[in-house]
């Protein structure tokens, strides 16, 4: 009730609220009190390097892993107290393609629909809609084994949408895919968001978070470092960056305007430095806030 009141006061409907989430594996603290909220209809990205705690967060929220502490809510539902109700609200697209390769596309969707309590009529209707939406309708009676990697990813995503979840969890949805297939999937994810679904995405691709997310959380070593819009995060550093090539790597300087950056470049050029001018991007912000590259 307290949580619901807070939402009402701020005027924002929170689809996901995570409070002080902790996970410990023996001596290792995988999550050290993660806290964040995602507004209804928002696409929120958890961005961090491998082992940062992104997947652990999603696994806990989807009931695959037991938390060591903390609370989480999907709308008004407390996830760990009402797991069955929470699971009905959520769709999960895991990092690993966990489809039944021996079954057909249609059979995979049928089993998912039954698991989520849909009627046969609803399953047929939703499966046809989603297979068409993902451009897989013609392949519906083929075994999943015969699909390409990109097609399997698309099937994985639409399978999670079968029961019309209010929240969709995408765990590294484009990992290992060719750039052109990745961009196709970005289009699919955007369209899903436009239909009103709240999306929590984890990725270690900077450009993916920059292109897709309304807000981004940098996560590193089990802790959220900072949360903001991609634009606000980059603007905290400036608009333009100048990279100097040094013996031990790049040294980057940030400037609020192009003129100031160019002036700096001229000075460095006179000293014989190799310099490059570019716009500040999300990776700069990540390096700035965490001290490391993704």
């Amino acid at each position, binding site marked *: 009730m307290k949580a619901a009141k807070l939402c009402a006061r701020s005027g924002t409907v929170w689809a996901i609220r995570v409070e002080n989430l902790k996970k410990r594996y023996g001596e290792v603290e995988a999550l050290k009190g993660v806290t964040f909220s995602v507004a209804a209809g928002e696409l929120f990205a958890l961005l961090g390097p491998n082992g940062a705690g992104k997947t652990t967060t999603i696994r806990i929220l989807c009931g695959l*892993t037991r938390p060591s502490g903390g609370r989480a809510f999907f709308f008004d539902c407390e996830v760990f107290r009402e797991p069955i109700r929470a699971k009905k609200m959520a769709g999960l697209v895991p990092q690993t393609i*966990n489809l039944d390769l021996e079954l057909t596309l249609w059979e995979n969707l049928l089993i998912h629909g039954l698991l989520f309590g849909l009627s046969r009529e609803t399953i047929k209707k939703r499966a046809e809609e989603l297979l068409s939406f993902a451009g897989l309708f013609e392949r519906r009676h083929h075994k999943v084994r015969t699909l390409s990697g990109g097609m399997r990813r698309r099937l994985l995503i639409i399978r999670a949408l079968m029961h019309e979840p209010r929240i969709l969890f995408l765990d590294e949805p484009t990992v290992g895919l060719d750039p052109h297939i990745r961009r196709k999937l970005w289009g699919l994810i955007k369209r899903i968001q436009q239909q009103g679904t709240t999306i929590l995405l984890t990725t270690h691709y900077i450009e993916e978070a920059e292109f897709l997310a309304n807000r981004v959380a940098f996560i590193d070593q089990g802790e959220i470092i900072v949360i903001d819009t991609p634009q606000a995060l980059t603007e905290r550093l400036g608009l333009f960056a100048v990279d100097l090539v040094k013996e031990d790597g790049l040294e980057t300087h940030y400037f609020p305007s192009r003129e100031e950056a160019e002036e700096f470049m001229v000075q460095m050029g006179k000293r014989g430095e190799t310099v490059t001018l570019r716009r500040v991007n999300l990776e700069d912000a990540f390096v700035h806030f965490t001290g490391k590259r993704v």
Partner: protein
Amino acid sequence: MRGFFAVYLRELLIIWHRLPRMLLSFSVSPTLYLVAFGFGLGKDLSVGGRPYLEFLIPGLVAASSMMQGFGINVEINVARFYLKVFEEFQAAPISNLSYVLGEILSGVTRALLSTTVILIITSLAGVSFHFGPAFWSGVVLNAFIFAALGVTSAMVIKSHADQALVTNFIITPMAFLGGTFFPVENMPGPVQLVLKALPLTHASRLIRQASYGEGLNVTDLYLLLVLAGLCLLLAYWSVDKARD
């Protein structure tokens, strides 16, 4: 219980897609045992006044239903460690009991299929038995117990290699020693005690007695029912423990 149906249907679809290969594989072991022990070694032997072949076939049914029931652990292992389909079940709004019952029933289905294959082969060999409710209740209970143990072992073990150890050290010896190939009563007293503690010994006795048309062995039936309940609880507990 729709979750239970979804889990079971998935297994049925897998069986359906593999049916020809599966039936062929179900027929290999019993045929070999029948040829080697039944027609070869045991041709002139008799047990309890009956030809050895008549003693052997119910034992093969018991051993095969055990193996096929327990064999779902391989499917669960593949679903858990290779395909990761188990995570789809974990993320779904279904109870652990639905999952366990769905998997156990698929084990029982496989056992019924393998039993049918054995009965077809033996009928070709000219041997006939009584296949009434007592016979089938023995087969189903035996498969249920070992399918539940199969679920438990698949949840508890950490790799495919560990699974092979369980099969090699527990299931295979039981298949040979649980009253399948010889009467347990032929063994020395202390060994008999050990062998009578095996669930398969009671399943073999129940199935054999029913096959001979000697009615239902109520003691064995109750014992197997209690064991089935305990193994179901064990499987339920193990699925909950599988969440890391």
